[in-house]
C-alpha cells in the first residue's frame, strides 16, 4: 500500500443477494487522484485483519465486527467501539435481518476500557467532555501533572444513521445527511449526492456545481472561525472566543440570505441544487466576505502577535509527518505536519479544478501550525468564493438524474473543514441505497490523539490537544435523532 492512504472499511451484508459478507477497504492514492477498493467476499463472517499492517484501520475493523459481526482475525484490540455498552452480544445492527429501529431490552453494561498502566492515576475527561460539552470519554493516565497515555470511549450518540438511510429514498437522504453535523452538514449532503451521481453516471449542471462549491467554502470559513474561537476558549482566552464568533456572524447571515437557513440546509439534491444564487444574494455574500476578511485580518494580527498564546500552543500536541502518514490523518492536522493532502487538489470535484486551490502546508506539526493552516485557509476560502462568484456560469441548476440504476457503486470524497470526508453508496432497488457508508474526518483524527501526547504533555495541555483536531463527535458517530411517523 505504498503511497496509499487508508480511507475506511465498508462492510456490507450481501447475504440476500449472493450469500456473502463483503468487506471493502477503500484506499486513496492521493498523488495519482485514484481511490481503489480492496474487496473480499466471504460466506463465513471472518476475514484476515489488516490492522497489524495498516494501523489506521483499527477503528474501521472494530466497527466491522461491532456492526456487521464480521471478525477481523488477528486484530490487536477488538473491543467494542460503536454500540452501547449494554448492547446484546450476537446482534449485529448492520445486518439486513436486524430492523433499523430494533431496540434491545435495557441491560447493565460496562464500558470496555483498557486496563490502566500500573502506578498511573486515571483522570477521567468525560463521558461528558467538559471543554466542548459533548459526549466523549477520554481516560488520561496521569503521573503528577504529566499525561503518559490515554484511552478513548466514544460513540455515545451513535444512532445508526447509515442503516436508517437505507430505508429512505435518494431525495430524502440529503436532509438526513446534512444533519449528521451541525457545522459541516453541507459536506455530508453534497458528498452523498456526489456519490449517488457518480454511481448513476448522472451529470450536474455547471451552475449547480459552482453553487455547491461556494457553499462548501462558506462552510469552511465559518467552521474555521468557530474552531479558532473554541481553541481560544479552551486555553482560557475568551476574548478571542467572543471576537472570532462575532467575526463569523456575517457568514451565517449570508448563508441565511442564500439558503433560507443560517446553516446551509436544504440546498442540495441528487442532480443539482434547489435554490439559485441570484444577483442580490451574490451581493450580500460579497459584502459579508469583505467584512469577514477585514475583521479576520485584525483578529489574526492580534493573535499572531500574542506571545503567551504562541507559547501555549507551540511544540504542544506534535504529530510528526511519519505519524501523520501512519495514522492516515487528513485535513489541517495532516497539512500542519507537512503532509500535503487536500481532496480539493488531489481528487478534484465541484469547481475546484477550474478555480485552482493552493493547499496550505506547514512543517512543525504542532498546534500552532494547525492554527496557522486554518487561518491561511480562511483567506484562501474567501478568495475561492470570490473567484467562483466571478466565473459562475449561467444555466439551469438542476438536471433530473432519472431512475437511479440499482447495484452501482459511487465513492465520493470532499475536503470538509476538518479533512477528507468520504461517502460510499451501493445503489439498491426501489429508489433506495442498499448500503450507505459515511466516514467523517474526525474518525481518523481521534485515533491519532494518543500519538500527539509527548513526554512533556501535562493535564493542562490535553484539552487543547484534543481540541486542536477540531473534533466533531456527532460527525464521527453519525448521530441522529429522528422521530418517524410510519
Amino acid at each position, binding site marked *: 500500500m505504498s503511497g496509499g492512504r487508508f480511507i475506511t472499511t465498508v462492510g456490507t451484508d450481501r447475504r440476500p443477494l449472493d450469500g456473502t459478507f463483503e468487506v471493502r477497504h477503500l484506499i486513496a492514492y492521493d498523488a495519482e487522484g485514484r481511490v481503489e477498493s480492496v474487496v473480499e467476499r466471504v460466506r463465513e463472517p471472518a476475514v484476515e485483519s489488516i490492522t497489524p499492517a495498516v494501523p489506521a484501520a483499527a477503528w474501521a475493523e472494530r466497527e466491522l465486527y461491532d456492526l456487521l459481526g464480521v471478525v477481523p482475525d488477528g486484530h490487536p484490540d477488538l473491543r467494542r467501539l460503536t454500540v452501547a455498552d449494554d448492547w446484546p452480544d450476537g446482534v449485529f445492527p448492520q445486518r439486513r435481518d436486524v430492523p433499523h429501529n430494533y431496540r434491545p431490552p435495557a441491560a447493565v453494561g460496562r464500558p470496555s476500557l483498557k486496563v490502566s498502566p500500573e502506578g498511573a492515576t486515571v*483522570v477521567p475527561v468525560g463521558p461528558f467532555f467538559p471543554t466542548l460539552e459533548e459526549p466523549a470519554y477520554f481516560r488520561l493516565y496521569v503521573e503528577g*501533572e504529566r499525561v503518559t497515555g490515554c484511552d478513548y470511549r466514544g460513540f455515545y450518540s451513535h444512532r445508526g444513521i447509515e442503516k436508517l438511510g437505507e430505508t429512505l429514498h435518494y431525495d430524502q437522504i440529503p436532509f438526513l445527511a446534512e444533519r449528521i453535523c451541525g457545522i459541516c452538514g453541507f459536506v455530508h449532503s453534497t458528498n452523498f449526492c456526489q456519490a449517488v451521481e457518480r454511481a448513476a453516471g448522472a451529470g450536474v449542471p455547471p451552475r449547480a456545481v459552482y453553487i455547491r462549491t461556494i457553499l462548501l467554502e462558506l462552510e469552511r470559513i465559518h467552521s474555521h472561525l468557530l474552531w479558532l474561537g473554541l481553541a481560544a*476558549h479552551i486555553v*482560557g*482566552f475568551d*476574548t478571542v472566543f467572543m*471576537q472570532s464568533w462575532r467575526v463569523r456572524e456575517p457568514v451565517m447571515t449570508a448563508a441565511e440570505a442564500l439558503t433560507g437557513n443560517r446553516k446551509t440546509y436544504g440546498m442540495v439534491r441528487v442532480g443539482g441544487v434547489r435554490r439559485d444564487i441570484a444577483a442580490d444574494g451574490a451581493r450580500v455574500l460579497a459584502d459579508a466576505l469583505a467584512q469577514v476578511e477585514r475583521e479576520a485580518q485584525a483578529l489574526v494580527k492580534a493573535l499572531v502577535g*500574542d506571545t503567551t498564546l504562541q507559547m*501555549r500552543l507551540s511544540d504542544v500536541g506534535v504529530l510528526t509527518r511519519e505519524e501523520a502518514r501512519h495514522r492516515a490523518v487528513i485535513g489541517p492536522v495532516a497539512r500542519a505536519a507537512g503532509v500535503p493532502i487536500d481532496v480539493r487538489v488531489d481528487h478534484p470535484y465541484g469547481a475546484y479544478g477550474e478555480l485552482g486551490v493552493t493547499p496550505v502546508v506547514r512543517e512543525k506539526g504542532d498546534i500552532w501550525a494547525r492554527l496557522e493552516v486554518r487561518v491561511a485557509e480562511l483567506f484562501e476560502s474567501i478568495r475561492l468564493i470570490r473567484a467562483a462568484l466571478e466565473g459562475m456560469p449561467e444555466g439551469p441548476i438542476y438536471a433530473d438524474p432519472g431512475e437511479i440504476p440499482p447495484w452501482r457503486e459511487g465513492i465520493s470524497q470532499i475536503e470538509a473543514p476538518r479533512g477528507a470526508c468520504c461517502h460510499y453508496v451501493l445503489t439498491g432497488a426501489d429508489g433506495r441505497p442498499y448500503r450507505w457508508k459515511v466516514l467523517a474526518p474526525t474518525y481518523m483524527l481521534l485515533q491519532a490523539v494518543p500519538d500527539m501526547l509527548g513526554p512533556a504533555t501535562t493535564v*493542562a495541555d490535553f484539552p487543547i490537544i484534543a481540541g486542536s483536531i477540531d473534533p466533531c463527535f456527532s460527525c464521527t458517530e453519525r448521530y441522529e435523532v429522528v422521530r418517524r411517523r410510519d
Partner: protein
Amino acid sequence: MGFLYNLVFLLLLAPLYAGLTRKLRARLQNRQGPPILQPYFDLFKLLGKEERRVSADWIFRGAPALVLTGALAAGLFLPMAFAAPLGAAGDGLVVIYLLTLSSVGTVLAGLASRSPFASAGASREVMLLLVVEPVLAAAFFTLGVRENALAVAGAGALTWAPSTAFAALAALAVLQAESAKLPFDIAEAETELMGGPCIEYSGPPLALLQLALMIRQTVLASFFAALFLPWLPLLHPVKVLVILALVEVVAVFSPRVRIAQAIRFFEGLAAVALAGLLFAAFGA
C-alpha cells in the same frame, strides 16, 4: 467606624465589584453581559438550593468557612477608608498570613473533595502559593525597609522611588494570581479542571465559597491600595474599583498559562522584587 466600614464593605459590596468587573469584561468582549447585580442573584439562588455533599468529611464542610474567615480577618487588619480596625494588633505580615490561610482553605476544599479535578486544582493552588507568597513578601518588605515599619499605615505619604516601582510591579502580578484571574486562574481552570477545588461544592456552601473568593479579591485590592496609593483614604471604594478593573483588563487580554510557565514567571518576578528590596536597602 473603621470596623463597621470594613465589614460592611467586604461582606456587602464584594459581589458588587464582581458584578462591575464582569460587566467590564463583557463589554471588552463585545458582549452585553449580565446585570451588574448578577453575583447577588447568583448567591441568593445558591443559598436556596439543595446541598449535595460528596463527602461527610468535616474538612470538606469547613473549608469554605476557612476561606471566608481568612479573607475577612485579613480585611480587618487593613486600613480602608479609615484606620485599620485591628491595626494595633498586627501589621502587614499578619495580613499576608491571613490571606495565605484563606488560600490554604481553598487547597483543603480541593483535597477533601476527593475528585481528580479538585485534587489537581488543589495541587496547582499549592504550587502557585509557594511561588507567589515570597514575591508578595519581598514587595511588602521593600516598603517596610523604606518606611522603617511593617505597619500598613494606609494614609499619608509614600515617596516614590525605583524600589517602590519594583515592588508595585511585583505586587500587581501577585494580585492577578491571588485573585485567581487569567492568565493565572490555573487552579480553577474552567476548561481544564472545571472549577478545580470548587467542583464538588453546591448550594449554600458553594455560595459561601464564591462570596469568600470575591471578598478575597477586594481585600487584595484594598491591600494594594493601602500600600501603594495611600492618599485620600476616603476614596477607598474608587481605588478598589480602579485596581480590580485593571486586573480584569489584564485578564481579558491573556490566555491561561500552564502551571510550569506561571512558576517560571514568578521566579523571574521574585528576582525583580528582590532587586527592589536591595535598592530599598541602599536607600533608593
